[in-house]
């Protein structure tokens, strides 16, 4: 599903070149649950952003479901990731001015889903996550765990093949964190959603079927 070949990314600062990613080679098959681990600044988020097509890379090749991402234009890339990838963030990144319902609905708007269909899809997911009662609340009115639940619901509503989660439990207490991880596990095993998460925590990493360790932008063997 994902094939990264010799991916390298750097930034120039004051004449020096800082490598964020160095010669990353990674293959992810459909249905895998991968945890990326590493200390702060090791490049976990950058790697996720590259995989999510939110960030560019300087060298290397990236194939996503057979499409050469490095050769696509921004519009095509946007089309690709918005239909196939769902994002979950550490800071949830919900839009504060929109209700729970509207937040979950937003990705469908950008995929031009019809109103009736949209309603069905959002209702489904609200139901499944047991947050129907919260649908008219605004994000600041929810607890962190609940917000992240909405975040996951939003990532899943368009039925993506891949979920990219950047420290999804970083802002949560351990019990809330566990619930989210259980949810990921369930999605992976029951729905066959491919998941790539970045995390600090050994315990969370253990939910994955495969662990990749990053240090200074390199995959440690």
């Amino acid at each position, binding site marked *: 599903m994902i094939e990264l070949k010799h991916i390298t990314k750097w930034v120039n600062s004051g004449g020096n070149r800082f490598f964020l990613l160095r010669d990353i080679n990674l293959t992810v098959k459909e249905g895998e649950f991968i945890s990326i681990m590493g200390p702060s600044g090791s490049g976990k988020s950058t790697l996720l*952003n590259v995989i*999510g097509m*939110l*960030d560019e890379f300087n060298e290397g090749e990236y194939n996503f479901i057979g499409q050469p991402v490095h050769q696509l234009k921004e*519009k095509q890339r*946007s*089309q690709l*990731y*918005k*239909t196939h990838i769902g*994002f979950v*963030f550490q*800071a949830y*990144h*919900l*839009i*504060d*001015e*929109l209700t729970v319902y*509207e937040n979950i*609905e*937003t*990705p469908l*708007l*950008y*995929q031009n889903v019809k109103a009736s269909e949209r309603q069905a899809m959002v209702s489904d997911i609200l139901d499944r996550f047991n947050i129907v009662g919260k649908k008219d609340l605004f994000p600041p009115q929810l607890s962190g765990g609940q917000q992240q639940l909405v975040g996951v619901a*939003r990532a899943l509503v368009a039925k993506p093949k891949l979920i990219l989660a950047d420290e999804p439990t970083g802002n949560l207490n351990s019990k809330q964190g566990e619930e989210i991880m259980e949810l990921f596990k369930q999605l992976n095993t029951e729905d066959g959603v491919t998941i790539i998460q970045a995390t600090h925590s050994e315990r969370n990493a253990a939910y994955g079927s495969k662990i990749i360790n990053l240090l200074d932008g390199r995959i440690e063997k």
Partner: protein
Amino acid sequence: MIKNYFITAWRNIWKYKSVSFINIGGLSIGIAAVILIAVYIQSEASYDHFQANLNSIYRVGFSSGLSEDPTAVSSEFTAPFSEDAQKQFPEIQNHCRVSGSHEAWTLYGDKSIKTSDLKYADDSFFKIFSFKITSGNPQTALQNPFSVVLSKTLAGKIFGKTEPVGKTILVDGKTNYQVTGVTEDAPANSTIKYEALASMSTLYHDSTYFMGWNGGWQYSHYLQLSDDASATGLEKKFKNFLYDNFNQKFSTPSQSLAAHLQPMSKIHLYYDESAANTRTNIYVFSVIALLILIISCINYVNLSVARASSRFKEVGVRKVLGALRIQLVKQFMGETLLISFISLVLAVGIAAALFPIYQDISGSALHIQAKELLFVSAFVLLLMFIISLSAGGYLAFYLSSLNTVNTFRMKLPKSGKHILGNVLIVLQFVISTALITTVLIVQVQMRYIKNKPLGFDKDHIVVVSLTGSNAQQKAIMLRQQIAGLSYVSGVSAMSEVPYDNITQNGFLPEGRKDYLTIHQLDADENLLKTLNINLISGHYFSDQHMVEADGYIINQALADKLGWKEPLGKTINRDGTHKVIGVVKNFHFASMHDEIGPLIITNKPWMNEYNFLVIKYTADNPALLISKLKDIWKQNTATAPFDYWFLDNAFDTLYKSEQKFQLLFFCFSVLSIVLSLAGVFGLVLLNIQYKTKEIGIRKVLGASVVDIIRLSARKFLLLIVLASLFAFPAAWYYSGTWLQNFAYRISMQWWMFVVSAVVVLVFAFFVISLQTLKAAKAKPVNSLRTE
């Protein structure tokens, strides 16, 4: 999708209430002001446009001498001009003479009504002009002598609900006129205005009117040219025509008259007495409207961009969720459009609510017809689009161009944007400072002309108009009786009251070959004492020197003009030779726009009749005096109406147009200053919000509250100083241009500039300190926790 955008926009407006308030409030007030100004300009620009024959009507302007000064053109001339011209030139299809305004008292039944605007006009009036006649026959209404057509308002006053046509009214207690028609009131934006129109033919039956070529300069001549006629061609032919009929017989070569054609459509803006003033006003208010608009847009862009960082996250999230750039641009444009739309609705409401007050202040009865209303609406809509596109467009492209990943880090890009922001703030300060300076200078000048000594006393003076020949003949008897009243310290009869200019006539002073036009005032022996005018040399007319009643008193300005060091005993010729017997100190007999001109005071009024009695009283409350005057008036004149006014009030009306201008200018300037400062306020507010963390860190490191205020104030204060460098020359230039309108004017002082800069400084410092204080006093622990 649209709904989603709309919801986000609406909730954002709610979330940042104070900023939205400044944004929407500022924008709507700004648009309202622009609408009002647009209405004013439209009203001025559409003057006379209701005339169906607008493009074929010309007024004739007459200029004298070799002077090229277009303002020296008078539209009033003697009666036969257009009548004879039409006989000679086939390109003139129709002509219509309209006399100057006459004051008249009408009597119907026992009701006596005064009109200040009775004009005489030819029977072609309704053929050429598009005034609506509601009853009577427009073809014949002004045909017969002693016919009069009334405006609806005047007809209502005189007749109430009775049908006026066919009735007879007594005018000025001596002549009967038959009412032959009633018209709608002349539109407010009409050059020709009237309350009553009497037939021109009447004047040929009245021996007091001179209808020949050489006198009675009081008729405006309107010509309707045939479609194929050339105005310039006709103008050329007028040269010989005027020579044959007038110049050859009645004029010296240096003063020979020339006739010009003034297109009706251009009269108001180019040929009217007040045309220059009107144009200045239009110009000034256009500039102000533009400034208000610029300020509103700057406020909008500045506040929106400053606020944009709070939207970074949203932009990032939307991008991650698959929003294309164009979709984001559309969203933010739409948001601006929504804000503009709300503002527009509010603005129209504000403008409509203020319209009556505005009309009152501006005094010019604003007249808007359906067609013009459409124009103003279209203009406003266009305005709204420009605001939305420019302000929203900037924001939209700025936000949507941000890198997705960076938006999550909530960092403002450092380069470029701040410079633009600073430029816009400086522009705001420039506008505020320049406007405050200009307002100050206008105020000081207006105070100056109101308080400048006139050279005579205008206070405690009541003027009685001697209307009707009966009263004029009894002037001296009236004067004696009034002088005997208590609280009356002086009474004088005169031909004109010196406040709004005085008639000019041609005189030939000793040693000159050409006639000079000199103001002429006819007054009795009491003039100097009553008005407290100072005599410099010689002596004034008095009962003791009857032999010298023939002499002239001149003012200092005339002596200076003629270069007479010893004016006494010199002679001036007009219908005989007159000796100069006295010189008076200069006094203002016209507004401060004009320099004090040369003046001759004679003791011999035209037809031996004075027009006014000027009474100086000592009582604080003149009510009792007025009632006594009325009694005396009734005993002596029987039916003639009693009409009086106070001289100081008359002086106040002299600067009415300036005062209107001053007031409007003041209002709109204060408005733009407030808007611009509100923008600064909003910016400071946001600036400090973003600096909360920095302030927290500095406090932890040991900075005091004063240190922090100094830090945030310094930048703004520097910008104000920079702005002043641009504002001062602009204010100096524009105020100077305006002051040129006055012959008597203040000189601009350095403090006028400094004061305005200080006002802006103080305000900015106040706002900054207040906001910073709030942030600086907060516990650093709280502000640092936001990360």
